[in-house]
């Protein structure tokens, strides 16, 4: 073959094909993950499953942003390793007189080739994977969704944008790599060390304190000042979390640099060489470990949503009644006979049908808000909201539970394990008013009663002493009586269709007074009207019986378990897949970065290992040195990343209601299980890295 520079470059490319393949794989993998994810997320099918402006979508976007960052980081690392392994070749060509311009052209050509292949295959296979996922979704969770369009230009656009950013960053790195003027630096790039300065024991202790203080005060600080000092911390307080980040960095520096002979001299000498090797590449190692810890945390955090959703599903499946409808007595709503007729049509058998009346009374309460300068405002209103009341005897009649309520006191119906929160205290209510008669009754909070059947999410419900109830509700008309219908059905294949039809009929018959949003408060509307201010919690559009997502905002949404379960499955199925995906992206980034770092250790220390051999070190000793270093790279960031998120979740659980609910324990247990899976994954990557190092160092 005629020898030319092109043929030489081609031969070198073939010889170093593993480096090119590695870069190609990383580019392909990141583009594939991002493309498939955004094509699924931005698909009209999936978008229809998310409530507009809802928290779920925001949370997914936030975690997805983290994962995209993870993808970019692992591309940067892969490119860094590629340039590093190429530096010797570049240095030799420069030393032998090849112009930088020509080398640059060659490098850009090679990058174009690798990136081009990676991007095209990543986008094509990403789209194919997205189609596969959407097909599965449409045939499992989303069988009855009206929207069937799979693609949106936005998804593909974002993936192209990500590809463009990747190309830009990698070409910027290539230009910087070629701009270097010191040829000796280029030739010795593979052996380049970045040592860290020595630190004392106090540095590590300070790092630990910073981590705990940053984490604890970042979350608990605003809660403490709000509760104790009635003062809201400004948003800048979130910067306290940075103290935790600094703490993590300091801890890593400490673990890498601090080694004293101390009380265990044997151990000190045992690890002397590997510790000193790590110290000399300390800066790169610590940077890597920080990124690994951050991505491990992100992977677990994204994964922790999955058990949360599953536990919620389990709770939903465990509702005390299958059908639960509430409306004002005066509404021309669906009645027992209508339900029975409809059930007959669908061949559904109704069991345990019951109706119960609640009296609607105005309740006093406290409106809380923060001023712009962080001070708490607490305004007491005699008619703060409308609550729904039942007498103790009627309550006992329906539930079989005897609730002792002394005259002049009340019991509030809550969910199991629910506690009061900062914005609404049980003791806020001390007066009730019959709006029709003007009668008032002073009351004192006595107790809470846990009851899932009679609990309403957006209206407070209370139990009164029988005589108090009689007195305050005397002469009350149907206008202020709320009727709750609840019943079960026997299992049959038509239950879901019956439920849908019932729900549609319920929506069709709902009057305009029922067309209000969740946050609607009649008392607040009255106040706004009196003050001549607009009030925004009435629906502006007529309610659509066909709209499956009406329940997100509707105050009178009927709780129909078969529908709720299916709708929840739609949404959470998509969300679970999304969070799982984000978690996978983070894990992929972790694997690639840790693997790359491990290989770099082998490449950089190759000469040192040869020298050790000359000094009589056996392969087992060299393996020990390697394992010792690898263990730190894998174990420390994993441990700190997992610890961070697990403790953060614990702080949130406790911060919510000052205790950990049984459902939270279940979620936490599953999250710990997921943390164990991450550890196993890291173990696999560790073993793969070790195998690769054995190959490189011929051990």
């Amino acid at each position: 073959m005629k020898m030319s520079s092109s043929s030489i470059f081609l031969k070198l490319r073939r010889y170093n094909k593993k480096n090119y393949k590695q870069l190609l794989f990383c580019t392909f993998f990141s583009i594939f993950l991002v493309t498939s994810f955004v094509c699924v997320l931005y698909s009209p099918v999936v978008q229809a499953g998310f409530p507009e402006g809802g928290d779920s979508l925001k949370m997914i976007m936030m975690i997805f942003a983290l994962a995209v960052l993870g993808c970019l980081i692992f591309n940067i690392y892969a490119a860094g390793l590629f340039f590093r392994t190429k530096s010797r070749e570049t240095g030799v060509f420069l030393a032998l007189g090849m112009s930088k311009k020509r080398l640059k052209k060659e490098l850009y050509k090679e990058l174009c080739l690798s990136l081009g292949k990676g991007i095209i295959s990543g986008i094509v296979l990403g789209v194919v994977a997205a189609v596969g996922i959407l097909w599965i979704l449409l045939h499992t969770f989303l069988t009855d969704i009206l929207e069937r369009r799979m693609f949106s230009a936005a998804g593909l656009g974002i993936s192209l944008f990500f590809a463009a950013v990747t190309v830009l960053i990698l070409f910027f790195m290539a230009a910087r790599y070629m701009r270097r003027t010191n040829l000796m630096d280029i030739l010795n790039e593979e052996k380049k060390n970045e040592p860290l300065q020595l630190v004392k024991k106090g540095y590590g202790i300070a790092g630990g304190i910073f981590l705990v203080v940053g984490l604890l005060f970042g979350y608990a600080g605003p809660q403490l000042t709000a509760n104790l000092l009635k003062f809201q911390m400004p948003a800048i307080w979130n910067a306290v979390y940075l103290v935790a980040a600094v703490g993590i960095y300091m801890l890593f520096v400490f673990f890498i640099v601090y080694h004293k002979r101390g009380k265990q001299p044997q151990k000190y000498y045992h690890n002397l060489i590997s510790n000193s090797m790590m110290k000399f590449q300390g800066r790169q190692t610590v940077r890597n470990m920080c990124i690994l810890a951050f991505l491990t945390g992100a992977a677990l955090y994204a994964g922790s949503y999955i058990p949360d959703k599953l536990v919620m599903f389990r709770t939903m499946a465990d509702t005390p009644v299958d059908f639960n409808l509430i409306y004002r007595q005066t509404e021309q709503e669906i009645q027992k006979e209508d339900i029975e007729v409809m059930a007959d049509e669908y061949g559904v058998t109704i069991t345990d049908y019951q109706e119960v009346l609640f009296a609607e009374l105005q309740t006093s309460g406290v409106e809380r808000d923060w001023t712009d300068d962080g001070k708490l405002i607490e305004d007491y209103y005699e008619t703060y909201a409308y609550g729904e009341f039942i007498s103790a005897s009627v309550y006992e009649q329906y539930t079989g539970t005897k609730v002792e309520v002394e005259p002049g006191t009340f019991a509030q119906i809550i969910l199991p394990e629910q506690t009061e929160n900062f914005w609404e205290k049980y003791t806020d209510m001390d007066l009730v008013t019959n709006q029709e008669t003007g009668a008032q009754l002073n009351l004192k909070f006595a107790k809470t009663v846990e009851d899932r059947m009679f609990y309403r999410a957006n209206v407070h419900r209370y139990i009164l002493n029988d005589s108090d109830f009689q007195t305050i509700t005397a002469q009350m008309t149907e206008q202020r009586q709320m009727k709750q219908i609840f019943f079960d059905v026997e299992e049959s294949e038509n239950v879901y269709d019956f439920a849908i039809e019932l729900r549609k009929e319920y929506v069709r018959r709902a009057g305009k007074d029922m067309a209000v949003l969740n946050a609607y408060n009649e008392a607040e509307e009255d106040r706004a009207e009196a003050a001549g201010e607009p009030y925004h919690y009435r629906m502006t559009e007529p309610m659509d019986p066909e709209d499956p997502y009406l329940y997100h905002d509707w105050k009178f949404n009927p709780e129909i378990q078969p529908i709720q379960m299916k709708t929840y499955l739609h949404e959470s199925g998509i969300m679970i897949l999304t969070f799982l995906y984000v978690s996978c992206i983070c894990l992929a980034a972790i694997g690639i970065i840790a693997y790359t770092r491990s290989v770099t250790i082998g490449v950089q220390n190759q000469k040192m290992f040869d020298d050790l051999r000359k000094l009589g070190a056996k392969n087992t000793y060299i393996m020990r040195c390697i394992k010792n270093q690898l263990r730190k790279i894998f174990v420390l960031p994993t441990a700190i990343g997992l610890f961070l998120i697990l403790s953060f979740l614990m702080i949130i659980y406790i911060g919510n209601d000052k205790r950990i609910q049984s459902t939270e324990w279940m979620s936490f247990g599953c999250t710990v299980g997921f943390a164990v899976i991450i550890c196993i994954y890291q173990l696999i990557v560790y073993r793969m890295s070790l195998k690769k190092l054995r190959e490189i160092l011929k051990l």
Partner: protein
Amino acid sequence: MLEVQNLHKSYVVGKDTYEVLKGVDFTIHKGEFVAVMGPSGSGKTTLLNCISCFIPYEKGKVLLNGKKLAQLKEEKMAEIRNQELGFVFQDFMLLDGLTVFENVCIPQVIEDAPYEKMEKKAKKLLKMFGIWEIADKYPAEISGGQKQRTAVARALMNDPLLILADEPTGNLDSRSSEAVIEAFLAAQRNLDATIFMVTHDSFSASYCDRVIVMKDGKIYKELIRTGDRRTFLDELLTELKIINGGDGDEDE
């Protein structure tokens, strides 16, 4: 041919600046085989790297056939490295993916030279240095001495004005070292090559026509070989012993 005038070079480490070359002056003539010796840290390798413009320097001039190397533009410097300089490194710097023959050809491949002439030249050099038999082998398959002779052959591919060698025997045993030095001598003898070699090894340096001894960033002494190699070696060892305060840590 090579003139080095008042060369100064410093390294900055953190807040400290270390002056490594403190005004070095010397000249090398066509066909000379010159070695630079001196204790560790005396600035030998830095001097070589400055001459080859691998690293920048603050003050002074390096003139190759009257051309100021530091003032040359990137393209021109590449041309000089390819045509007028040849490099031999301590750790060979061969490309592992290419055979011995291909490695030797690289300098002409870079300038897109006609292959017939290139192959002929490579073959001649390989034969001259006794490595023709391993022409098709890869660097991983040959010994250190063979690797370094390949590097020497590569350095001579374009008939450079000057060969710059950085500790070319540093990684070799005595037999291989001798073979490499023989290769340099053959190049000097047959091709009228000029060689500038940085070395720690007094034995290798004893083959040179002249030895520049450096200490603390300056030229301490220049020794010119007038008699036979053995006498020159003794002379070198005595001088190095004085520099090292009688420790005599230089290798023979």
